[in-house]
């Protein structure tokens, strides 16, 4: 894929830039769709129509929203810390965007095929916290600061169970490379880690072999629980309901971005949506086979058309990712918000011990099998 772009453009530097900007295009497009989806799903869950005026069936509503954000006056509060106030949204977005570098969209399309992909992803996703704290502090507004504090405490806490859950799968694969994790699940949906992982031996690109001599059915309940832990922590890490305490508008006006307006708010907004897709895509990659199709065969390979294989991969990644984003919206209108103490209880006394126990059990089985 990278080679293809290089050939297409010819100039090395330009090609690299295009290569780096590609995910941004994707995020922009996805954000537009997601905004509409959020509004529409919200209204359906509440038995109303949602936006209907802008364009047919309200389809241009997100465009109008984006335009509004772009044209709005960019207000910096007088007592705010100018430098940090302006820097914060950038850092939050950079944190979200940096993670896209290792996200495999297809077998041939991954920004950087790192051996440490999963670990890098976990590390980089903690980066946005700093931006959030920075914004909350620089706004010089007590609601912003409180929101930022809550958000940071929440993200830092929930990173532990989510990372542990991901490492459980990494332990089974024996690699932190995301492509390896996907390869391990090839062959059909029954080989996905959500259903216990590969049922027959798999050879990775590095030559390592994942053995499946016990059929891996024992892992099914364990990995199901692991997925639940991961997804719950992912909800909390992206500040989504029922864990949206940092932005609880009934208590905090708007959380850490209370004072932000215009495009700076837009960047926070984009980062949040990008993060939503990111954690969903990671769930897809780690537990649901990533770019693999559910039945294990691709039309592109069958017909020997590489481009089609590529598109299929992107389609499956996006489809699985969108599904989990949709589940997030669904949960938003289903569950009430947790209290702060319930949130912390959930993390430290439920998810973390459970994830450690799972890691122990799975690790033990992996060693003795």
């Amino acid at each position, binding site marked *: 894929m990278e080679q293809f772009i290089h050939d297409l453009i010819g100039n090395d530097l330009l090609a690299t830039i295009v290569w780096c900007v590609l995910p941004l295009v994707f995020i922009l497009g996805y954000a537009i769709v997601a905004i509409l989806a959020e509004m529409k799903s919200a209204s359906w869950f509440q038995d109303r129509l949602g936006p209907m005026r802008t364009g047919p069936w309200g389809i241009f509503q997100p465009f109008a929203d984006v335009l509004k954000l772009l044209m709005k006056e960019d207000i910096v509060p007088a007592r705010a*810390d100018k430098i*940090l106030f302006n820097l914060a949204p950038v850092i939050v977005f950079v944190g979200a965007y940096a993670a896209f570098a290792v996200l495999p969209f297809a077998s041939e399309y991954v920004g950087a095929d*790192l*051996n*440490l992909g999963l*670990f*890098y992803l*976990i*590390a*980089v996703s*903690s*980066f946005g*916290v*700093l931006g959030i*704290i*920075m914004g909350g*502090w620089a706004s*010089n507004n007590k609601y912003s*600061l409180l929101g930022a*504090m809550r958000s*940071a*405490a929440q993200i*830092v806490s929930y*990173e532990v169970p989510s990372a542990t859950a991901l490492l459980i799968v990494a332990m089974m694969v024996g690699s*932190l490379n995301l492509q390896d994790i996907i390869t391990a699940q090839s062959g059909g949906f029954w080989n996905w880690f959500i259903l216990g992982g590969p049922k027959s031996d798999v050879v990775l690109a590095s030559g390592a072999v994942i053995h499946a001599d016990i059929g891996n059915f024992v892992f099914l309940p364990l990995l199901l629980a692991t997925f639940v832990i991961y997804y719950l922590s992912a909800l909390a890490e992206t500040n989504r309901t029922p864990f949206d305490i940092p932005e609880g508008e009934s208590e905090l006006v708007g959380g850490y971005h209370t004072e932000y307006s215009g495009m700076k708010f837009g960047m926070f907004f984009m980062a949040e949506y990008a993060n939503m897709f990111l954690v969903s895509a990671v769930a897809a990659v780690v537990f649901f086979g990533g770019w693999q199709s559910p039945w294990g065969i691709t039309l592109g390979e069958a017909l020997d058309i590489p481009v089609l294989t590529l598109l299929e991969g992107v389609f499956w990644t996006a489809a699985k990712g969108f599904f989990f984003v949709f589940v997030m919206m669904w949960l938003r209108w289903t569950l009430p918000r947790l209290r702060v103490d319930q949130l912390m209880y959930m993390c430290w006394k439920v998810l973390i011990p459970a994830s450690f126990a799972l890691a122990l059990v799975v690790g033990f089985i992996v060693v003795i099998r």
Partner: protein
Amino acid sequence: MELTDIIFYIFALVTIGSAMIVVFSRNLVYSAFSLMFTFLGVAGLYVLLLADFLAVTQLMIYVGGILVLMIFGVMLTHRVVNVEISSGAMRVIPATIVVGVFLGTLLLVLTRTKWMVMEGSPDVIGTTSMIGTALVTDYLLPFEVSGVVLLVAIVAAAFMARKR
């Protein structure tokens, strides 16, 4: 100058520049935030040294963990309670002399000493599995002992933080 050289100088500049801000800024919050860039620069240098695992660990532990805690501490004591804590300068002249002598010594030591050069293999791709193997073979005892140290630390922290 090759591309890696340019990248090295960029990272070095980021590291040193932000470290200067950490030290010289009067505003503690600025210091804390610019520490982030220092850590990032160091992580970049690790990558250039092919220590990929170390680089990501640096991000994970320092940026994602320690720095967040530090900023938490600074902010909780700074604006919320309205205690003015800025790092002022005291006894500038003696400090300058001491630091100058120390810096000179360090520079001399660094540049003049004949350091032991270890054999490395530049074609190593990924150090993770090597580190993992070393941790459970040659360095098993320190690995386990650090587990005990961390357990003591976490119990100690909980003990100190508990309500009286």
